[in-house]
């Protein structure tokens, strides 16, 4: 049952399957209907499932999430698309004060199975607000689950699992990987949505990354291998909760950890991982956990993004520093 497909196509097939499997699943967002979304993730779904299931909404993100909450209260399972990372903030209040908290407010008596899909990250040469990585701003919020696939198979399966989950899930899609192809076994039973996986085994240094940066880390591992260095790459997949056990197990083997993400380092996911892994592996770490990521500056204009985004060299530089410690 293995098929080769791009990440975008895997997401599209995943949504299609969800719509087929459960009549309560709805797709909502700006331009998700006839247009199929600006990235075509919902391509063909409006045609096949109709405007009752695939809903073009007014241009109002708070309204989209707020009405999705209402639909969830009525028994639906809305899958919301936010057009770009930088446009989720008008919905932030509904997400943080309502979506995340309502289950607890009701002492568990109601459920909020809402998925919010957000294409995120840079590398596509876009204008302001179209290249950001705001995942930490959601992971810090109790009541939300935050995940990000890095490849087609995870795109396909993790989105299914997010939709099946009875909790709100913020689903970050690595937009510059939309066109990367990979194998998807549409019959394989998926693992836990929040489990990290070792994407590449190695012995000298562990690289932990998620979403778009996993590929960079795998490339870094390949480049390092040429220099005789063995890097282990952990694909975190989930940012809330984080599978610290898998990272810890890896770090206990390698003794060194570099966390890589596009989001600004300051108060980013790398900080949480560094803090917790240092606590768990204090006597196993040969060097402090190092972080490679975005700077404390607005995402730069497109002509600077190659310099801004963490790439092979910055990852390997951190590896060097970790090894030299």
């Amino acid at each position, binding site marked *: 049952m293995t098929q080769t497909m791009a990440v975008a196509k895997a997401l599209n097939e995943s949504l299609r399957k969800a719509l087929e499997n459960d009549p309560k699943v709805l797709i909502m967002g700006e331009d998700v209907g006839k247009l199929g979304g600006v990235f075509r993730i919902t391509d063909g779904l409006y045609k096949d499932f109709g405007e*009752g299931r695939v809903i073009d*909404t*007014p241009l*109002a993100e*708070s*309204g989209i*999430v*707020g*009405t*999705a*909450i*209402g*639909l*969830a*209260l*009525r*028994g*639906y399972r809305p899958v919301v698309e936010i057009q770009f990372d930088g446009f989720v903030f*008008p919905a932030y*209040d*509904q997400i943080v*004060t*309502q979506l995340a*908290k*309502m*289950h*607890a*407010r*009701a*002492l*568990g*008596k*109601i*459920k*909020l199975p809402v998925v919010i899909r957000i294409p995120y990250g840079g590398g596509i040469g876009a204008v302001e607000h179209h290249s950001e990585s705001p995942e930490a701003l959601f992971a810090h919020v*109790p*009541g939300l*689950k935050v995940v990000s696939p890095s490849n087609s198979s995870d795109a396909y399966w993790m989105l299914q699992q997010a939709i099946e*989950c*009875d*909790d709100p899930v913020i689903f970050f899609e690595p937009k510059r990987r939309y066109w990367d192809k990979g194998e998807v076994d549409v019959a394989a039973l998926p693992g836990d949505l*929040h489990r990290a996986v070792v994407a590449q085994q190695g012995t000298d240094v562990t690289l932990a990354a998620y979403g778009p940066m996993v590929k960079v880390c795998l490339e870094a591992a390949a480049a390092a291998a040429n220099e005789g260095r063995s890097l282990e790459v952990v694909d975190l997949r989930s940012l*809330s*909760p*984080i*599978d610290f056990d898998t990272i810890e197990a890896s770090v206990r083997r390698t003794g060194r950890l570099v966390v890589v993400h596009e989001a600004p380092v300051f108060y980013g996911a790398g900080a949480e991982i560094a803090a917790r892994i240092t606590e768990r592996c204090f006597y196993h770490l040969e060097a402090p956990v190092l972080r490679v990521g975005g700077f404390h500056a607005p995402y730069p204009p497109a002509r600077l993004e190659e310099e801004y985004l963490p790439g092979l060299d910055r990852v390997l530089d951190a590896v060097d520093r970790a090894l030299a410690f």
Partner: protein
Amino acid sequence: MSVKSTAAGGSPAKSRGRTTTRGTAAKRRAGEPGLVQLLTPEGERVEHPDYAIDLTPEELRGLYRDMVLTRRFDAEAITLQRQGELGLWASLLGQEAAQIGSGRATRPDDYVFPTYREHGVAWTRDVDPLNLLGMFRGVNHGGWDPNENNFQLYTIVIGSQTLHATGYAMGVAKDGADAAVIAYFGDGASSQGDVAEAFTFAAVYNAPVVFFCQNNQWAISEPTEKQSRVPIYQRAAGYGFPGVRVDGNDVLAVLAVTRAALEHARSGQGPMLVEAFTYRMGAHTTTDDPTRYRSDEEREEWASKDPIARLRTYLEREGLADEAFYAEIDTESDALAKRVREGVRNMPNPGTMAIFENVYADGSALVDEERAQFAEYLSSFETGDVETAGTGH
């Protein structure tokens, strides 16, 4: 004899009112264009061309009873707050007609999205009053099952529930259900972007939702002029659906208008905005001091429009209830107050580990880890250095 609004024409209407006070009623309504009224502050029954109502004496007595018991419950809650049993209370004093009238207009299958002040509406939905007190006592954030009485949890973030109501109504329409949704909000809330977005979504999807604005003249210390320079009900037209202003201290008018609005929604005609013109007689909450920002005269003027006194005058004038009825309500009130008082005093505190409950429906390894660590930490006091325990964790 016919008593008509001078502001509106229409067909001659039947009236149970009397001619003697006609001038006063007409004058009042002339001052407030478009204010729907069926019972004047003087307790006089008047007709409105668009909104009729015909209630049995029993129904009328029922509304009176609802309002009195709601007020009594509210007063008891204020007392309990003063006694330290509640951390806070948001009184509905003065808004009984707006809440009972609109709440009684809903049907069991309809769904209510309240703010934090809809104790009267909750009453009409058979929500146990004790449920409302949990969050004010600080033992939970609400905690009842909204689906039990189709009455959503209290929502504190101003305006946000109007979007939930709209989404819910979109679902009702999808299901083809014979029901409507009503979203409560305040005059202050009318400024929130969420409310405007709710209007937009409701109009675009023709959702069966009634937006019910209790304009109680104040958002904490800010008068309505700080939110709008025209009557709030007029906002609806700009979004493509009808708006109407009703005398919010007139339980009959509120009932009639809300019934019509819900029927409008249920029958596939889409949303409607009802502005109930009323007054917050008390403080914003028990921590508020209204003497800092409003005058006694204003309060007194509104006191003369009291919703309960008004209906009582009417009942008495028309001889629709006897002394036994009023006595029975007094007894009922006392019983309610007692039940509430005892219920609150006996309301258990949640256990410490409740902190970690219901964060997620499907669980989370992170919560599990923190729960386990905290449990271990707590148990260290039991086994060892107890001397530092109890001074705050």
